[in-house]
């Protein structure tokens, strides 16, 4: 099969048209002459001319071929032979692709791990190589930098390769620590192995893949563009399967009762246990929480078991079992832990880590824009009433009301949320204070009202030219609000709202009542066209935004288009107001840690292994100081994102599952932690369908390998028969280069031969024909007659005439 290494150079084929164009442009200038006779252009001449035309065409063809072949040479064509009969005597270059993902740590019936077995079988393949053969190892685990090659180029030091495989087999069996990579990227590894072999001179290029062939291991999406033409090694898959029926339990997901637990309140944790084994199994699930320094009964990582529960009935094969554990966090601050299931065969997927910030109390500062001595007329009356429902003993939310002019002096250190209710405008210093507060992780909730000055809000709080585009998620359009407060007519009711938002989800299910019956007599029309990343959470029945939200630095800002008292709406006296306000305030207060939306779930602290942790940098903050402690207690540093406008740092060394703690004293991030868990798919030990020796599904996924170069050998002892089957590519461009060279050398000779015959020769002095002068000779008798007739009467005239003739040109 022919292929091109760099087909882009085929564009150069167009250069073949250049000689043709020159030739045609010369031929175009034909001029036809009507001439008296063509009798002097003989057939012989025409024959020789046709020959010369033929030679010219030959020259043209040579020149075109020269250009075209040169372009072809640059495109580097090659010939890929079909896999030949095994010939172990020819030179070989072998790459071992070893799947070192978590699933390979499954302990087989004999107690050894699959990885250990794979490494030993791979070592046996290396042992078979001849001294001149070369070998390398690629570890197929999913890593941030792609699959890992032990040797950049295949090496002839077979002993080193073999030893490295054997030592890997030993460490895999001991299984003290997990390998760094926990996902699998088999296609990427095979491709890397092929790239490594591409420039090898050995006759046979072979790739041996030792893997449990987990279905999950083939899900890497980045290889869609690969084509069969560029691939030319022989790939032998050696499935490493458990010898006995599989038995594995895994916690694949955990549901938590709330985004953020409150201190002193029981918190529910619901782990999902999946049985990936062949038999139904029962099991015990335990909850472990990080213990204080020096506490008793802690494990190696510093966690203490706080709860344990057995699954009520055995989980069927391929099914989930769910149970609920409860734990009450007594202290506030960042808490972490894990849920574990007891399973010996594959330990890597037995734990799911978590990390929360437990809230002790939420302090809210409410800026009152329209205070009144009559309590019911006070702007904040309904809000305060709703938030303090149940009394301060069970309610962690504490609202402190301040006037507009007192806000500047109000301390915000322990405050999670600032509420602005019908505030006319704020002084410049107060705005700056508010911006700093939200940027560093606080949240802001804005209710509008009749006091509001749209000009101030639009210019100072929501202008695109401001830092991060201003605080507000929307601008206020129009100088007067929609509807009139005076006539109490209904201007709007509540229309669509975002059902998946934590603050509003209850209204879609009916759990917290409905939003029906709520009417708005007046509201400000909001415009989200110029603001960035705004989420419209609630709309009026007319489609106008009613509640908008956006992130600002480390915090969030929400904007409600109407008032929080009864002036403009009947919402405060409806039953839905209490859960609405409570959840909205709780949501805003809990989200203060500033997670970016591209995390696993918005606002959560949960990541998968290999996924980078992201953290917004406060304006004026120092990104370099954010050090992070990994689960194995080694440390790393957040690195600044390459995009300077994003103002965020990222940490990508998240290969280990566990809890990562930020170590940044004296910053709001101090003590913050992230939970990183194994990709759930690794627990699924079901291997890909390799067909009955055909590798059906395998070939479907790896189309770019080519069906005839792919083999699946279940019995590792048969691998010797595969030796020498893979055939490397034959480089055609070297031959082409010689052809080009030959033509290039011949071309001047050919050109010279043609032009010297047909062009150079006539270029001498133009040949002219001597005009034959009239040879005057009359016939014999006529001469006599003439003489007789003219006896030269006047000799003088004759002389003169002859002179005249002589002088005539």
């Amino acid at each position: 099969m022919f292929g091109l290494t760099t087909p882009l150079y085929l564009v150069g084929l167009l250069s073949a048209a250049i000689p043709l164009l020159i030739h045609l442009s010369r031929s175009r200038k034909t001029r036809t002459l009507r001439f008296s006779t063509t009798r002097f252009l003989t057939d012989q001449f025409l024959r020789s001319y046709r020959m010369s035309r033929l030679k010219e065409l030959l020259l043209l063809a040579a020149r075109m071929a020269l250009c075209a072949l040169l372009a072809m040479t640059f495109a580097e064509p090659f010939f890929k032979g079909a896999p030949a009969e095994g010939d172990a005597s020819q030179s070989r270059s072998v790459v071992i692709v070893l799947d070192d993902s978590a699933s390979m740590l499954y302990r087989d019936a004999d107690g050894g791990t699959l990885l250990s077995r794979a490494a030993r079988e791979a070592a046996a393949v290396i042992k078979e190589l001849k001294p001149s053969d070369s070998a390398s190892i690629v570890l197929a685990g999913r890593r941030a930098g792609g699959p890992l090659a032990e040797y950049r180029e295949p090496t002839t030091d077979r002993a080193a390769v073999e030893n490295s495989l054997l030592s890997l087999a030993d460490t895999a069996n001991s299984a003290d620590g997990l390998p760094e990579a926990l996902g699998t990227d088999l296609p990427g590894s095979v491709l890397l192995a092929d790239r490594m072999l591409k420039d090898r001179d050995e006759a046979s290029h072979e790739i041996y893949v030792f893997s449990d062939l987990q279905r999950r291991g083939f899900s890497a999406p980045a290889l869609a563009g690969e084509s069969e033409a560029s691939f030319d090694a022989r790939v032998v898959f050696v499935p490493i399967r458990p010898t006995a029926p599989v038995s594995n339990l895994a916690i694949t997901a955990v549901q938590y009762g709330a985004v953020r637990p409150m201190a002193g309140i029981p918190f529910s944790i619901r782990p999902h246990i999946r049985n990936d084994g062949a038999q139904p199994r029962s099991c015990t699930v335990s909850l472990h929480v990080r213990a204080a320094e020096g506490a008793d009964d802690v494990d190696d990582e510093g966690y203490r078991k706080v709860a344990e529960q057995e699954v009520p009935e055995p989980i069927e094969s391929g099914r989930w079992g769910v149970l609920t554990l409860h734990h009450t966090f007594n202290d506030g601050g960042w808490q972490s832990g894990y849920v574990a299931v007891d399973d010996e065969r594959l330990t890597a997927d037995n734990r799911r880590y978590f990390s929360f910030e437990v809230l002790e109390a939420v302090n809210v500062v409410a800026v009152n824009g329209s205070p009144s001595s009559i309590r019911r007329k006070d702007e904040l009356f309904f809000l305060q009433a709703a938030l303090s429902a149940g009394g301060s003993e069970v309610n962690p939310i504490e609202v402190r009301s301040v006037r507009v002019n007192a806000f500047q002096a109000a301390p915000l250190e322990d405050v999670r949320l600032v509420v602005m209710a019908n505030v006319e405008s704020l002084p410049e210093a107060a705005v700056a204070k508010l911006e700093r507060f939200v940027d560093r992780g606080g949240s802001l909730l804005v209710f509008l009202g009749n006091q509001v000055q749209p000009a101030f809000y639009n210019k100072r709080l929501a202008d695109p030219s401001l830092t991060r585009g201003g605080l507000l998620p929307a601008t206020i359009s129009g100088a007067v609000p929609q509807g009139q407060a005076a006539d109490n007519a209904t201007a709007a009711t509540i229309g669509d709202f975002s059902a998946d938002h934590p603050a509003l989800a209850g209204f879609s299910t009916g759990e917290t009542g409905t939003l029906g019956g709520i009417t708005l007599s007046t509201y400000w029309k909001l415009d989200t066209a110029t603001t960035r990343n705004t989420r419209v959470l609630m709309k009026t029945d007319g489609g106008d935004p009613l509640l908008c939200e956006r992130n600002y630095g480390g915090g969030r800002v929400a904007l409600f288009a109407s008032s929080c008292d009864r002036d403009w709406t009947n919402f405060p006296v409806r039953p839905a107001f209490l859960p609405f306000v409570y959840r909205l305030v709780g949501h805003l207060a809990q989200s203060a840690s500033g997670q970016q939306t591209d995390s696993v779930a918005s606002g959560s602290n949960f990541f998968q292994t290999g996924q980078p942790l992201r953290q917004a940098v406060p304006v004026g903050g120092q990104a370099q100081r954010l050090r992070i402690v990994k689960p194995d207690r080694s440390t790393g540093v957040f690195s600044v994102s390459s995009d300077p406008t994003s103002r965020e740092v990222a940490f990508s060394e998240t290969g280990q599952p566990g809890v990562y703690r930020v170590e940044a004293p004296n910053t709001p991030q101090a003590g913050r932690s992230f939970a990183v868990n194994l990709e759930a798919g690794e627990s699924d030990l079901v291997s890909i369908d390799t067909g009955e020796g055909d590798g059906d599904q395998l070939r479907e996924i790896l189309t770019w390998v080519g069906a005839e170069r792919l083999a699946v050998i279940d019995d590792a002892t048969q691998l010797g028969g595969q030796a020498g089957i893979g055939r490397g590519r034959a480089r055609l461009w070297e031959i082409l280069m010689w052809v080009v060279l030959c033509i290039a050398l011949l071309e001047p000779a050919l050109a010279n031969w043609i032009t010297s015959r047909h062009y150079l020769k006539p270029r001498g002095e133009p040949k002219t024909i001597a005009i034959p002068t009239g040879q005057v000779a009359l016939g014999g008798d006529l001469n006599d007659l003439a003489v007789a007739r003219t006896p030269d009467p006047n000799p003088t005239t004759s002389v003169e005439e002859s002179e005249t003739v002589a002088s005539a040109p």
Partner: protein
Amino acid sequence: MATASPTQFKYLDPQALGRLKNLSLAARLVVEGFFAGMHKSPHRGFSVEFAEHREYTPGVDPRHIDWKVFGRRDKLYVKQYEEETSLRCYIVLDKSNSMSYGTVGGMSKLEYSSFLAASLAYLVAFQHDAVGLITLDDEVRDMVPPRQGPGHLRVLMDRLEAIEPGGETSLAESFHQLAETIKRRSVVIIISDLFDDPDAIVSGLKHFRHRKHDVIVFQTLDPDELSFPFDDVSRIEDMETGREITSDPRAFRNSYLEELGRFLDTLREGCLTSHIDYSVAETGTPFDQFLGAYLARRHQLM
């Protein structure tokens, strides 16, 4: 008294004459110019032969009354004489298509040849000799038998002016045919480009010689035909046969000139061995100048 010098004809260049479009005038200008200042022609070789008697009518010169007949018949008769010429001259003009080629001053070879023929006719008539005209291409097209007198000359001029080019050159056969047709010994002046098989032409000319005719050949050729100065021509169409040849211009030229040289050599040598007066009339040369030079040379030889 000096003979005519070529500078005297400077106003009679072919282009100027061509513009006259009047052959008789042109010919007269040429010939009289040529003879201007010479002694009057001696009019030798003229004899007066009795033709017949005619009844006398008043007004006729009484010198010609035949008194002997009056004595016998008692009636007045006058003698009629037939003027006899010593020279019969045929001008054979080739009017084939190839003769219509011409580049000098827009004048074709045929026009040049016509002027030449007209001048020669005038010249012969001027000497009171009989002159006839034959035009031919692939066969004899028109034949005016030689006569004497100004009226006949006018007929010839009219015929010459009326010639339209056409047909292929196939001279050799026509020559044989003519040689058989012309019974009396004559001077045959052939004006043609002779673009035919040279050996066949020479054989045709020899036939004239065999019949004791005096043969003069003027081969009219355009300067282009002699030098082939075209460097940018890549296709040539034959005016007679329509044959088209495509080639490289430089390859054309070399081959053409070689073949042309061979052709002219064959003709010249053939004419020389048969005592045929052969001249190439290049149309670039003013024909009065050519004619003057030719006549002078011929005269010198005589």
